[in-house]
């Protein structure tokens, strides 16, 4: 593939699209035809996303099929994954094919599987996060250094200030927790946020000007 196609055209598209978005945000009033036209332009990203979705599906199936073929570790779970993907795909496509609103429709069965199977499994693994937080907090709150000691004291005060029992033990705990949250925490937080915002603008400028282009791949 020539360098023009692989490098210069993507850089030109990046610059033009970035320029259009800045103009649209600041100079085109919402609701005007010109602003709507730019919104339509951004919607073209959906075309890429749909294509990438298909790539994702193929990649997922390929990965698990290869694991089954090689009899890799826990290949049985790969079988379950493939069966689940195919069944859910069939349910979804059948629902779309048999309904008038074909493009934006989730059938009753599709929604039922999502709400009664998928959501519960998702929430189950989400709930495991509590145990990860507990084990990480145990390590973080050990008195190993001055910083860890400050973290332990501040964390304890926050816990006592936010949990109902803290206010029962001493009515000053909620006020201390509130002060910690709105004064030192907010100050540090805003400093990081300002740094992130300016860093993001700096990165965007490098990308729009084509100075930083590592994400485009090999120059050959």
């Amino acid at each position, binding site marked *: 593939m020539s360098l023009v196609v692989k490098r210069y055209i993507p850089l030109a598209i990046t610059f033009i699209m970035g320029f259009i978005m800045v103009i649209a945000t600041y100079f085109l009033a919402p609701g005007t035809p010109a602003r709507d036209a730019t919104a339509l332009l951004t919607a073209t990203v959906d075309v890429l996303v749909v294509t990438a979705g298909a790539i994702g599906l193929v990649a997922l199936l390929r990965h698990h099929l290869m694991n089954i073929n090689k009899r890799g570790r826990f290949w049985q779970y790969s079988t379950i994954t493939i069966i689940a993907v195919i069944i859910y795909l069939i349910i979804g496509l059948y629902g779309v094919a048999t309904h008038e609103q074909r493009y934006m429709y989730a059938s009753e069965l599709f929604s039922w599987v999502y709400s009664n199977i998928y959501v519960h499994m998702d929430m189950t*693994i989400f709930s495991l996060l509590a145990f990860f937080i507990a*084990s*990480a907090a145990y390590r973080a709150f050990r008195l190993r250094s001055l910083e860890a000691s400050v973290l332990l004291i501040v964390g304890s005060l926050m816990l006592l200030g936010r949990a109902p029992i803290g206010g029962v033990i001493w009515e000053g705990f909620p006020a201390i927790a509130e002060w910690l949250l709105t004064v030192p925490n907010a100050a540090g937080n805003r400093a990081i946020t300002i740094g*992130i915002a300016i860093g993001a603008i700096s990165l965007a400028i490098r990308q729009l000007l084509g*100075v930083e282009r590592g994400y485009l791949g090999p120059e050959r």
Partner: protein
Amino acid sequence: MNFINEGLVASFAMLVIVLAEILIALFIARGGTHVPKIRKIAGLEAIEEAVGRATEMGRPITYTTGLGGIRDQYYYQTVAGLNILGHTAELAAKYGAKLLYFPYDPTIMPMAHEVMEQGYIRAGKQEAFNPENIIYLGGDQFPWAFGVLGTTYREQSAANIHMGPFWAESLILAEAGFYTGAIQVMGTANYHQIHFFVVASDYALIGEELMAAGAYLSKDPTQIGSLWGADFSKLTAIAIMLIGVILTAANVTALNDFLAL
């Protein structure tokens, strides 16, 4: 008649100031008049140590770029993560370590493929690049996170590198690395997850350090110049805040009125 949309005048003025400062610094550095020095970023220096350790132990490196794709407002973090992925791939190729990358959004798979391959080419080992090491586990937060956790645990990864936008899955990924005894290098600009990374990882990139990674690793004076310009922008922001404090204390509302325009 207003040329600039209502409520965005101050925002546009700030954008112009920041843009001017960064562009001036960028062109000064490009011209060679003054090439600024950049301080060492421990998290980025530690990647080589992590890759070296994985090579010595004969175990893989786990890498993710968080939950970002190409269509969301966190895209800049994903791109920063991909820049570091390229550097990690180059080091992995150089030392002969196995690098496993787990994309969350399929839209970044082609970019990740190119970036990793570029890393192997730079190391002169294109033939060692294996596209099957880019493993797509699905595009939903917790199934993806536990897929990465499970693979990290099964493969007993010796290095755990996570760079990009993260949410509630950040600690799950960090704990996976802890249980395998991996050296952990993590970075995000999502301020609500930074503390998790600071606490749970060996090295953490905080906020803007992540965005500076591409320029830092490239050693390109033009890119480093843009970081220098961003420092001037931070000074401008501090100056505006100080002026705002003084004016507000003096009961002058001019700056507040301008910011509301």
